[in-house]
């Protein structure tokens, strides 16, 4: 929403985390993690350009609010525990 | 009606034009004169002819002296005094251009050599600033720096300017050889003579 000039700072200083941008909406394919096959190697976490993967007990948790579906995690996973599926399927 | 009537109505008390060559300290001479006059309580301004000349090229610089604050920022067209630091400029440069009738010209001129070709409607003064500067070891023997000596001579020819403030200013401004520069100016003051027709 457009703010009144009176409510704006002197100059546009960006001070809000980019988590305000739900870039997950861009996604057409979605990663699915098969925890049973995961060896906790952290490769997917390491290569995620969007820092959208966090490690919980060593397992990857993908934040679908931000994952753009690039598929790097699936492509790089050595144990092939991540697959990409079309949004709306599976 | 003299062509410079209009200029007279706004011109300051004293306007001086210095002629010399790049590297001789012409611009510094104009500034030191201004500072000496300022020391005496005058208002002043000093400026070079704003060129891009390099070492050896003819250079001019100007000083204005007045009892009131100086506002005018134009060139000086009708000087009261002309000071020539290098006599070789008498050939080729019209050093007397615009000099007021009854104005004075001071030339750095070798002792004993006859000064010719300067019209007698101006007061003419000579001073062997080169020999004086050389004898005090200012600059090199082949290229003595004459700007401090010539200012001693100027104090002699200009009633409004006293020698002591000129010497004080030289003492303050000279980066090296302060005593020698002061001594040269003092000697120059003594040795400046008017050329009689």
């Amino acid at each position: 929403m457009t703010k009144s000039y009176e409510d704006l700072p002197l100059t546009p200083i960006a001070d809000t985390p980019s988590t305000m941008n739900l870039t997950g909406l861009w996604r057409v394919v979605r990663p699915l993690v098969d925890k049973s096959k995961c060896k906790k190697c952290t490769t997917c976490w390491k290569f995620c350009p969007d820092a959208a993967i966090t490690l919980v007990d060593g397992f990857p948790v993908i934040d679908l609010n931000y994952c753009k579906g690039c598929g790097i995690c699936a492509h790089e996973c050595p144990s092939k525990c991540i697959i990409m599926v079309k949004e709306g399927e599976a | 009606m003299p062509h410079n009537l209009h200029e007279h109505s706004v011109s300051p008390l004293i306007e001086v034009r210095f002629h010399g060559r790049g590297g001789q300290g012409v611009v510094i001479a104009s500034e030191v004169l201004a500072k000496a006059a300022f020391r005496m309580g005058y208002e002043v301004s000093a400026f070079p002819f704003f060129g891009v000349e390099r070492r050896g090229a003819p250079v001019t610089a100007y000083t204005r002296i007045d009892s009131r604050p100086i506002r005018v920022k134009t060139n000086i067209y009708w000087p009261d005094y002309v000071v020539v630091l290098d006599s070789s400029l008498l050939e080729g440069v019209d050093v007397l251009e615009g000099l007021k009738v009854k104005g004075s010209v001071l030339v750095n001129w070798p002792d004993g050599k006859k000064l010719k070709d300067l019209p007698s409607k101006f007061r003419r003064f000579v001073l062997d600033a080169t020999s004086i500067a050389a004898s005090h070891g200012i600059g090199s023997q082949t290229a003595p720096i004459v700007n401090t000596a010539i200012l001693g001579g100027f104090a002699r020819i200009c009633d409004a300017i006293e020698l002591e403030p000129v010497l004080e200013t030289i003492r303050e401004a000279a980066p090296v050889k302060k005593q020698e520069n002061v001594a040269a100016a003092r000697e120059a003051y003594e040795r400046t003579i008017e050329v009689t027709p």
Partner: protein
Amino acid sequence: MVKTTIPEEEFTYPGSTGCPGCGANLVMRYLLKGLGGRTVVSIPACCWAVMPGYWPSNCLKVPLLYTAFEATGAAISGLRAAFDVKGVEDVTIVGFAGDGGTVDIGLQAMSGAAERRTDAIYVMYDNEAYMNTGIQRSGSTPYGAWTTTTPVGPKHEFKKEPKKDIMAIMEAHGIPYAATVSVAHPEDFVKKAAKAKKIKGFRFIHALSPCPPGWRMNPTQTIEVARLAVETHYFPLYEIEEGKLRITRKGKGTPVSEFLKLQGRFSHLTEAEVDSIQKTIDEAWKRLLDREGPEA
């Protein structure tokens, strides 16, 4: 507990507006992991000037100063001077620019900053063309590549000139540290960033940064293509510390065709042209080995 091979702490937020599979996103992510939170980054016009998002969004957890396209070198000098005069110590100043902003329009300001020995790290993320404006050729675009300003038409045109050797240019400035890094080797990347942080003076990091739209490739292959760049010696990983060169990853010397064939921007090349690229790479690699010498 699982141990990660690079620092776990993140200095970038999700929600950046970079393209899916963007290499430049990873360059920033790894860089800040190596440098830590007491870092100030200056970014000129480039993809990264857009990636933090529309105001008030910011995807960095450290201060960010935007600057004009050609001005990164000057901006980091200004930042360092301000912190020095204010007595702010223990801060790493980073200039973070694309290849156009570095080897082309920003070369003068960067050279000035290097010559002045500005205490800062300059990072060039090299996606080998003006990608922010839509894939126009830069001085860092390699021989053979298609771009929108080196179109491949009926006369079989493409970029005929080799890439500017920015590492050699920066080394010639006599800077204390210069290194190449790749998003396919984050451990090597983070180690070099951390090393650069400890050195004083002007440091330069050249990061190869695959660009899926600009290289006409599948975003899933960003890491694979970056890895092949190293393996094929297209983009060797090395560092030059006080004039001493050390190759940090030798690579297998895989044929460069393996690297090229993943990218649509090279798809028009004939076998002979690929061979000539291979030859150029082999010669450069040999020079690099010779330069490193036997002791390493």
